[in-house]
């Protein structure tokens, strides 16, 4: 298996506001788009011929991935003009595929080990996983090694085995992608016509991102494996504990205390007297002012965080400018997405280019739309649409 088709055309509406301007496959996890992690895992398995099916906001995806050079792979792009389904997306790549190839979603985090275990299986095959809560996935019923049926989001799941959306196919699959829009339906009709489709369960990391707070668990999983490296300037009196990776031209100022796993990008200005606690990713060109504490959070690029702030379990997208004494503490929050209620333990989620005055307090679970402006000393909670003005 030398080729992989990555499906990255999807929008990810439930991930708004983070997916208003970019596809979910480029959401940043540990300073790299999810898709970048997927491509790296493939490259480690010698799969360097990569086809990426793009659609929604493809520009940002091109900007990150380019021709694949930085990942040591060769990328071909095909466009799915309308996002009709996974089988339809795959069909766009037909002309570019070899006899056998892997298919992966561009927005699922998968590690190299998982792929290594899966590539030996004979196509057509589905990578399956046993999960505690199968209802949001396609549930797979199995007979020995072969699949009997895949049922999408059943009201009552018969098994805990679910379809990860990772497949090994031959060109034979394309006979079924014309009539069906989604791959599980195509596989069901394949099975109905007497073809055998294998199921392979493997260990290793596999996480998907569906809701905004999922970004935190993916970030945590990736950070567990990061190596220690330091390209920046570490001033006197700084403590770096555990795995801490610091990018070039970043300066960590005196008396800052950083406990890994933590990733800090390039050109940042951190501290003095700043505490960064485990499972935190900080992007490029970020300023974190003195006496600020950040824990289990994802801070993207070009962000300025004022002094004396406390940020826990939070996600802050590119370009936000945050004043002094911002409080984003975590706690159990009830969040409504697509008319469903979820209770999660999370801090604040800020879209791109928000500006917050001094002393803003965010209630757990607040989702602030892109380009919002919050004046000083405001208490914010719930969901604020894009371009909100809180005065």
């Amino acid at each position, binding site marked *: 298996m030398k080729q992989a088709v990555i499906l990255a055309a999807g929008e990810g509406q439930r991930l708004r506001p983070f997916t208003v301007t970019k596809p979910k496959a480029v959401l940043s996890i540990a300073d790299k788009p999810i898709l970048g992690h997927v491509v790296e895992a493939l490259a480690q398995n010698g799969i360097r011929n990569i086809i990426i099916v793009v659609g929604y906001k493809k520009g940002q995806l091109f900007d990150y991935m*380019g021709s694949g050079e930085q990942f040591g792979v060769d990328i071909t792009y095909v466009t799915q003009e309308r996002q009709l389904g996974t089988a339809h997306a795959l069909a766009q790549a037909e002309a570019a595929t070899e006899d056998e190839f892997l298919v992966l979603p561009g927005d699922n985090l998968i590690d190299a080990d998982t792929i290594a275990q899966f590539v030996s299986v004979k196509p057509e095959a589905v990578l399956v996983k046993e999960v505690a809560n199968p209802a949001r996935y396609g549930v797979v019923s199995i007979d020995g090694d072969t699949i009997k049926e895949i049922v999408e989001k059943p009201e009552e799941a018969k098994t805990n085995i679910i379809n990860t959306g990772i497949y090994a196919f031959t060109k034979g699959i394309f006979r079924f992608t014309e009539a069906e829009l989604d791959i599980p339906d195509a596989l069901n009709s394949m099975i109905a016509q007497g073809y055998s489709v294998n199921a392979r369960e493997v260990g290793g990391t596999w996480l998907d991102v569906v809701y905004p707070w999922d970004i935190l668990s993916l970030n945590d999983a990736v950070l567990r494996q990061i190596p220690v490296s330091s390209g920046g300037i570490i001033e006197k009196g700084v403590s770096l504990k555990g795995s801490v990776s610091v990018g070039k031209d970043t300066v960590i100022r005196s008396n800052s205390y950083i406990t890994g796993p933590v990733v800090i990008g390039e050109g940042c200005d951190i501290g003095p007297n700043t505490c960064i606690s485990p499972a935190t990713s900080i992007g490029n060109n970020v300023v974190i002012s003195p006496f600020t504490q950040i824990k289990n959070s994802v801070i993207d690029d*070009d962000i300025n965080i004022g002094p004396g702030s406390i940020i826990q379990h939070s996600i802050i997208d590119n370009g936000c400018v945050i004043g002094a004494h911002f409080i984003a503490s975590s706690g159990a929050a009830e969040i409504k997405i697509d008319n469903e209620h979820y209770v999660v333990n999370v801090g604040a989620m800020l879209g791109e280019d928000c500006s917050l005055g001094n002393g803003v307090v965010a209630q757990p679970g607040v989702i602030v739309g892109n380009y919002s402006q919050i004046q000083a000393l405001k208490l914010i909670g719930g969901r604020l649409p894009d371009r909100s003005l809180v005065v």
Partner: protein
Amino acid sequence: MCGIIGYIGERQAQPILLGCLAKLEYRGYDSCGIALAGSSFQVYKDAIRVGELAKASPRFQGTIGIGHTRWATHGEPSQTNAHPHCDCTGKIAVVHNGIIHDYQSLKQQLIAEGHKFASETDTEVISHLIEKHYQGDLEKAVVTALREIEGSYAIIVLMMGDPKLIVARKDSPLIIGIGDRENFIASDVPAILDYTNRVIYLEDDDIGVINSNSIKVRRNDKIISREEHKILWSAAQAQKGGYEHFMLKEIHEQPKVIRDTLVGWVPLTEEATDCTTTSDENVESILILGCGTSYHAAMIGKYLAKELVGIPVRAELAAEFSYHSQGLARTMTIALTQSGETADVLIAIRRAKEGGGKVITISNVVGSTASRITNQTIYTRAGPEISVAATKSFIAQLMALYWLMMSYSKADARRLADILFELRQIPSKVQQVLDNEDNILEHAKYLSAYENVFFIGRGINYPVALEGALKLKEVSYIHAEGYAAGELKHGPFALLGSDTPVIAIVTQDSTLKAMLTNIKEIKSRKAPVIALAEEGCEAVEELANEVITVPRVDTVFSPVVNTVALQLLAYYTAKHRGCPIDFPRNLAKSVTVE
């Protein structure tokens, strides 16, 4: 501008030459050709694209050859004027980039001596001169021939039955790519990156003899060694990476270009502020030079210098500067050239140095000629720019100017701290402009129906109006003029009407009131107004027919977001009109002739 290529090695030369020529296409050209020395001498050339040449040319055998893309200067684009050019015997072939000033007198003399010329080009005299001086040693013949020539050149000479290539340069770029039992010669690095990243930059008056496993460089008859450089960027960076055109890809790279620049230059707020103490006390004035887009960056630099440095500053067109240069001692000259090879800028740099001043060059190409003749070079971090219409290199030049002006700044520390604070947000602000692409596309469709467009701006955004007009005319072929908003009523008003849209760049600074008045004046002449304005500028929304919004930034950074919006407008207008965006007609990437 003309591109030249040479190969000598063990592989069949034809596919390599054609592949390299395709990589040189971005320089702009109208004709192309190749010559190979195998068992016989084989030449194929025409006024066609490289892709057509690859299909039309017969399969030539041979492991040594030369190729050329021509951008016409002497003689129209035609098969006979295309390079390579041979001598009377048909055994010597030459490809050339540059201009031979005394070719007419040389040509008359050669004709009088019995030489027969096939083309109207200046280049052909080189082939005949070499033939005239050839007495069994090709290198000597080339050296003697070049002594008779006045002008600029990068040449490769190929002779039947002589397994080597002779190369020479003067005022035109030329590099040698070092391979394994093979060597490459090219006008610039992207042409050969598929084969090697080991490069030697030749200097003026160098003569090289290239074999498949040796490179000998002579200067004034002495063998010298030229340093080998490793190119760190790769061929893939010069690929489109999913985008339909290089121009769009390069526009989209700009947030990263700005971020990379920031990461390298201003990691520390106070360090940048500290630079103020290192500024040269002897500098009494600043002169900024450039051509085309770089001149627009120079003009913006003038406003920045006024705002931040506070000493007398002027921006000049490099091509005009030489005619009136005076009083250059105690002047710091900043020369802007993306390629570092622009002939007019090189001449101006030399002139400025002769005048006794210090010259700082801002260039995007490491090892370029400009960087070697200047006192100091600031390299912009734009990466290779392929699109003929400059986009990211312009923004990178602006970033270099911000950095330079902040280094020399005499503004108070608080103002500088504010600027630095805001500078860090600029990549995200530019990304916001890009994310607004679909909206700009709609305005572009509207604009594409017109044949005449005016751009107006005031203050620091006056050069942006010029740049917006330049981009539009370059890629969409719409006649576009940029004006200082106050100048419109001194003449161009006569041209305004319902079929001449005016694009007005509006910023919410001291120029706002005057600009709103200008828009009213224009509207009363029935000309439709598209305003480019910061979000939340209500006065403009009421006045203008259409508004393209950009994020609000400090006035000193408004040229960055405004230019990016106008780049997208030009791109999508050209796309809607079906223009060959990356290779506009008659244009060349770096203009290596005067």
